[in-house]
């Protein structure tokens, strides 16, 4: 079941070029509450759309970078009598502090106590368990490919510079290729990845969602 219709990730503009998420919102009403509750009781999984999942991962990434200042906020709203009311809000900080705020009339309503509150907690768990994704370490292969490219480009230069036997030339090329591979891998892992993370959080990869996807994808490939 898709969450798109009633899952919202609220964002705010913090500077001219920067828009960041600040809250995840579940907008429930009498209709979708029944559907979601059925998924909950069946113990099925909720599918989150690709864009929303990217924004959620980005939100979690931001929260981890600004640990004390940017917790993850999850709020459940319920529409009743044409009025949207926030019933419960969970504020989860990566430094271990969690605050559950529950609206005072909760215990007057059995529906709220028995359905909405458990769903709120379950939906948060469903979203958080989908945060992680496969991380593949292709840094060595990428470094290898880059080193090969540079080596091929530099072969004519080596041939000109090294007026030696073919064996020595091959040795020089092999040595250069190895050094390049090692250097490229080091640069990829230690410099490029940090730079990508920086751009994803604060730079040109931070908005909109398609750029965030690219940034997350690159990070996942670098291990």
């Amino acid at each position: 079941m898709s969450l798109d219709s009633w899952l919202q990730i609220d964002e705010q503009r913090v500077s001219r070029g920067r828009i960041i998420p600040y809250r995840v919102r579940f907008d429930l009403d009498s209709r979708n509450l029944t559907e979601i509750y059925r998924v909950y009781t069946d113990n099925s999984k909720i599918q989150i759309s690709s864009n929303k999942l990217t924004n959620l991962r980005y939100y979690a990434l931001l929260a981890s970078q600004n640990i004390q200042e940017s917790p993850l906020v999850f709020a459940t709203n319920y529409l009743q009598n044409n009025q949207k009311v926030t019933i419960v809000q969970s504020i989860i900080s990566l430094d271990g502090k969690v605050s559950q705020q529950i609206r005072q009339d909760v215990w007057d309503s059995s529906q709220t106590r028995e359905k909405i509150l458990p769903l709120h907690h379950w939906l948060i768990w469903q979203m958080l368990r989908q945060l992680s994704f496969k991380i593949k370490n292709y840094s060595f292969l990428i470094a290898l490919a880059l080193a090969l490219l540079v080596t091929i480009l530099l072969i004519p230069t080596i041939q000109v510079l090294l007026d030696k036997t073919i064996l020595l030339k091959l040795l020089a090329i092999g040595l250069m290729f190895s050094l390049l591979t090692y250097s490229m891998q080091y640069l990829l892992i230690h410099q490029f990845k940090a730079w990508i993370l920086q751009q994803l959080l604060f730079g040109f990869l931070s908005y909109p969602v398609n750029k965030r996807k690219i940034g997350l994808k690159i990070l996942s490939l670098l291990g």
Partner: protein
Amino acid sequence: MNNFLDNITTIEINTVIVEEIVDEIFIPWEVYQAIYYISRSTLEAEEVPPSLHDRYLNLRRELELQYSLLSLDRNSSFYNYLQAAEIRQNLPLLTSPNHHWESLDTRLPEPLLRKGDSQISAIAHLFEERQFVNTLRQLGKIKNNLDWRGHTLRHNPQSILNKTYAQTTISLDGKITNRYAQQILQHRDRSCLLQLHRQSVDATSKQWQELLKFAIAFLLPASKMQKH
């Protein structure tokens, strides 16, 4: 990235019943102004319940402390080498929870327009300091909670509204501590309240595990890169 894994030793889950859950918008100028003018006299004039006075004053102390730390940071544009020695001398007063810090002259730029544009631009410049703004945001949240709590105390001192009524702390060494506000022990809905908190604790444990998995798998290697 901070080494958050090194700093996590406990998970603390607090449950609060509130009158309503509002969407808090952080406006740095408003929060700065509100906290800057906190003093014993203003708290009395605004009839803030006496039990909250120390907590409000603590906000003011924290703001002053944060600015002092900024003034001592050589990498900050607020670094004041002429007054660094004196600021350093005052730090023990600002970091201790007693009232002696109140006798110190404030170094914070005043928000109101009495001293002209130079103060306004100083404050605007201050809001460019990320750490300062982050602290201001935290202090703003605490102040909001205190304001709600004050409102509740004025109308119904025995109410548990807007106050953490149950807290569970789970340490990494397996120790679990539960704390409850005295008022809920005689509350007519005690069972319901305790059940709500238990639900929160059970749910948080599962949620927290997933969040940690993400952070460890995805961010820990990246954080090591940034460190180097």
